[in-house]
């Protein structure tokens, strides 16, 4: 497996970019911690949590895992299957609400 030989010169990036991302991750983690610290509740909490979560995940994947520099073919292969997960999540939300409903609404109490 000597396939990378031909491309060896290319694979490094300036150190600055790693340090930047590193710093950003710290800041974002700090922010998401603050969400709990200030006890935001309800919709605000969820939006903030999700925003920070996706930003962090995106930064890690894009820069630390170099996805930002990869060919689109790889990126797409990795991201499209997530639709199945999204569908699963979406349906399971509906499902837990329904389960909770039957546990509270009918004559039968609890689980």
């Amino acid at each position, binding site marked *: *497996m*000597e*396939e*990378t030989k*031909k*491309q*060896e010169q*290319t*694979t*490094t*990036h300036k*150190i600055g970019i*790693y340090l930047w991302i*590193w710093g950003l*991750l*710290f800041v974002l*983690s700090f922010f*998401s*911690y603050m*969400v*709990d*610290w200030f*006890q935001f509740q309800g919709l605000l*909490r969820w939006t903030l*949590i*999700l925003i*920070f*979560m996706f930003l*962090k995940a995106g930064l*890690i*994947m894009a*820069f*630390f*895992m*170099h996805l930002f*520099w*990869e*060919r*689109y*073919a*790889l990126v*797409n*292969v*990795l991201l499209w*299957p*997530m639709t199945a*997960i999204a569908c*699963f*999540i979406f349906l*399971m*939300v509906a*499902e*837990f*609400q329904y389960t*909770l409903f039957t*546990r*509270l609404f009918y004559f039968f*109490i*609890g*689980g």
Partner: protein
Amino acid sequence: MSDLKIEGYEFKPGYRGMAEDTGSAQTMFKGVHWGKAMMWIFLLSDTFIFSCFLISYMKGRGSTPVEWPNPSEVFALHVGGVDVPLLLIAIMTFVLITSSGTMALAVKYGYEKNRKMCGWLILATAIGGLTFVGMQAFEWSKLIHEGVRPWENPFGAKQFGSFFFMITGFHGTHVSIGVIFLFIYAYKTFAGHYDERKRGWFTSIKGDYVEIEILGLYWHFVDLVWVFIFAFFYLW
């Protein structure tokens, strides 16, 4: 990566490039090492594992009529007379991110064939991972001490303990495996296996610094999963 060259093949950017890569012979991910492609696909599969765990957790938590304990209180640390919510978790998060950063740098120096720098950074990553596992062990024992078990939970819904131990346990296993490999790779780096292209012990494939990037992918993935666990388990 961005500025690859393959003899006789012209790289095009964006979706047009994707169409051409896909339609071309030999490799679909142009310039991507076999091992690296494998690690990506494996991580995709692993993502599905963690997603199933987290989805089950969501379903379990959402459908129980019993009250779910407030993680902010359960995981608080008693420091200097006050309860600081989620303190330990916050520190763990920072430790893991730090180790992710050192790993990213290790990969960079690996490609620059800077053996010393690369080795030390891998070692630093390993130590970060070890610290994380240690803190997790502390957190587990604290919860167990408070009476939380996989099968019961004094603060409310039973499933709290079950999901907590299972998901963090599974993640912790990933971290531990990563730490073991980090130590091995640190050794191999210092011993110069990648510079000399020495063959692997079992696989008998010639060593190459790309292996560090592959391990790096795994390590960043572990960090990535923690981002989701942190959001869904501790902040929800």
